[in-house]
């Protein structure tokens, strides 16, 4: 069965307006025949029986508009409007069963959905929650246990033990809080999510847009902001220093971070702890190759003895 992105066991409860329903009914009715509509609906609802749903006799043909209205209403009742629109966009772009379809009113429907707090991400061809409205660990759409390709960013504070020993407790806590604010701002600005934070560091995940670029830009911004923070507002007796690693790979999504078991996450943490110097960000080979030339040109090959090379970003100054 085709996996339709956006179908969740805990679907995002979007408010579906009457106008959106109207647009979707027209979009469906004006773009395909009833047979295709049923074929399409069965991708979302197994064994969908339109005759049973509409009450029409099986020897009668169902008018397009009635069929479309019933299907859209059923999708709404089962909270499948987001995957339904995702599927419509997919069919509009790629066709269905080898046939091309031009589906009208999609732009208007997407705009209407934006008002309800979901946005369409062209890179992943999925809807996700609008970060300005709501921020959840699964972007409102990722399914529990389902495997996705994420880019992870792991941050860890350097010399935490010494920092705790040499500074008053409240100042250390304030510094932790400042660090978290810096990381959170850099990550969430680029639609990433902090999945776990343990006081002196944590793990952030990126899934939408150009995730590798977003993660690397976040890492760079964290290094820059910490530089300014250390110069202007750090209250510790030594500057706050971090090690950052960025790595990409598959991971089964778990809402509860404690239950997350992922080689990609483990690898990210290993890159951070074994191959990253203080005040730098280390980027794995897979992430490096996803970067634009301008950004990739700023990375330095670490020449470590591993199967794949690692690249590093460090803030360097002219002499």
């Amino acid at each position: 069965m085709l996996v339709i992105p956006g179908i969740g066991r805990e679907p995002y409860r979007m408010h579906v307006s009457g106008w959106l329903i109207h647009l979707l009914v027209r979009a469906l009715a004006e773009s395909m025949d009833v047979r295709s509509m049923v074929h399409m609906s069965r991708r979302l609802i197994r064994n969908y029986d339109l005759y049973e749903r509409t009450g029409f006799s099986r020897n009668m043909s169902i008018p397009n508009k009635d069929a479309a209205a019933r299907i859209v209403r059923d999708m709404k009742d089962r909270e499948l409007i987001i995957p339904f629109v995702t599927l419509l966009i997919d069919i509009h772009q790629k066709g269905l069963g080898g046939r091309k379809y031009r589906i009208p009113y999609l732009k208007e429907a997407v705009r209407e959905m934006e008002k309800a707090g979901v946005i369409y991400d062209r890179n992943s061809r999925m809807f996700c929650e609008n970060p300005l409205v709501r921020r959840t660990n699964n972007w409102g759409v990722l399914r529990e246990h389902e495997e996705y390709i994420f880019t992870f960013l792991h941050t860890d504070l350097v010399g935490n033990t010494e920092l705790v020993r040499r500074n008053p407790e409240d100042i250390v806590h304030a510094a932790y809080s400042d660090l978290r604010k810096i990381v959170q701002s850099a990550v969430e600005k680029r639609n990433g999510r902090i999945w776990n934070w343990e006081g002196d560091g944590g793990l952030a995940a990126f899934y939408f847009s150009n995730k590798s670029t977003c993660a690397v830009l976040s890492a760079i911004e964290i290094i820059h902001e910490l530089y300014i923070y250390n110069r202007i507002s750090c209250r510790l007796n030594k500057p706050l220093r971090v090690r950052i690693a960025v790595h990409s790979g598959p991971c089964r999504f778990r809402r509860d971070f404690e239950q997350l078991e992922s080689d990609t996450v483990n690898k990210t943490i290993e890159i951070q702890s074994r191959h990253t110097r203080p005040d730098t960000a280390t980027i794995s080979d897979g992430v490096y190759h996803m970067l634009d030339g301008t950004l990739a040109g700023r990375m330095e090959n670490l020449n470590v003895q591993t199967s794949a090379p690692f690249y590093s970003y460090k803030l360097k100054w002219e002499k």
Partner: protein
Amino acid sequence: MDIYLFTANDAVRKCFKPISGSRLYTLHEHPPDELKARTAGAGEDVFVYLDIEGLTHPKQRAACRVLSERGVRYGIIDRTGSVDDIPLLFFNGASDYIGKTLARTGMTARRLRKTLGYSSGTPAERGAGTVRTADSGYIVSPEGWRSIRVGEEYTFCLMYIELDQPSGLRNKLSDVQFSTVMETFKKFVQTSVGPVGGKPWIWNDFGGLVLVPFDGGGFGVAVTSFRMILSRRIFCVEETGLDIPFSYRIALDIGNIVYKESGDTGTIVSDAINFIFHLGKKFVKPGNFCLTEEVFNMAPEGLRRSFRPCGSFEGKKIRRMRLPL
């Protein structure tokens, strides 16, 4: 009002006991070695008393320097009378001196009120980040843009910013791409200077002049400019969406201007505006960030280390930011 008392001496703590009972002041006692950490980011509502007993002369001087540079108001407690030149403490930025006698009789809330009144009257002498209006000729706007009226003269932080080599860009990009980059750049400037109260005022295709009302406090736009130079590559990749390296130059100065609405600036005759445009266009090299000595002295102390003298321009000393590679 928070009173920070840095001492390791019980007799001094006893001397400040009347203050701890006051409803007007909150007394915080800390060991002297936490002075640097505790006073970072301390604002107007903090007054520091430092007990210098047990500190060597170099350590005393270093502590006073830190407090002065941070603009923190402070007093010295000298229970043993070890300071030879007491007036020198005041010349260096101290606002109070508690000698042998007072340390014995004890501090009172009334005396503390007088000290605070005295110290708040001389902000310029307390170090960087604040300016005395009467002496400097600055016309401050304490409430930012809300204080500004058209046709009146005010002191503004002036930021000149311009994309480098626009003609080269025009050749590399299509017309649509070029206009998108210019719009994106203006938006980037607006977003960056917005949090410090900055507004693009005179703007041409490739850059222009940003005004920030001067509130007599720190020079936040210097930090913003510093950040913009640091993040120029992020701008190229993230904002423009084009894999082309862009660079921009920034110049900062402070000066008085008779304010007019943006778009109605054609008839303004102003030395400050002429100077900042000349500085930005003729002196600052592509990709660089320069500021005048006057601005440099108001910039946060931690950032000043990143600026080097680079000569004079039209009679003003200029400093240039050491660039990130």
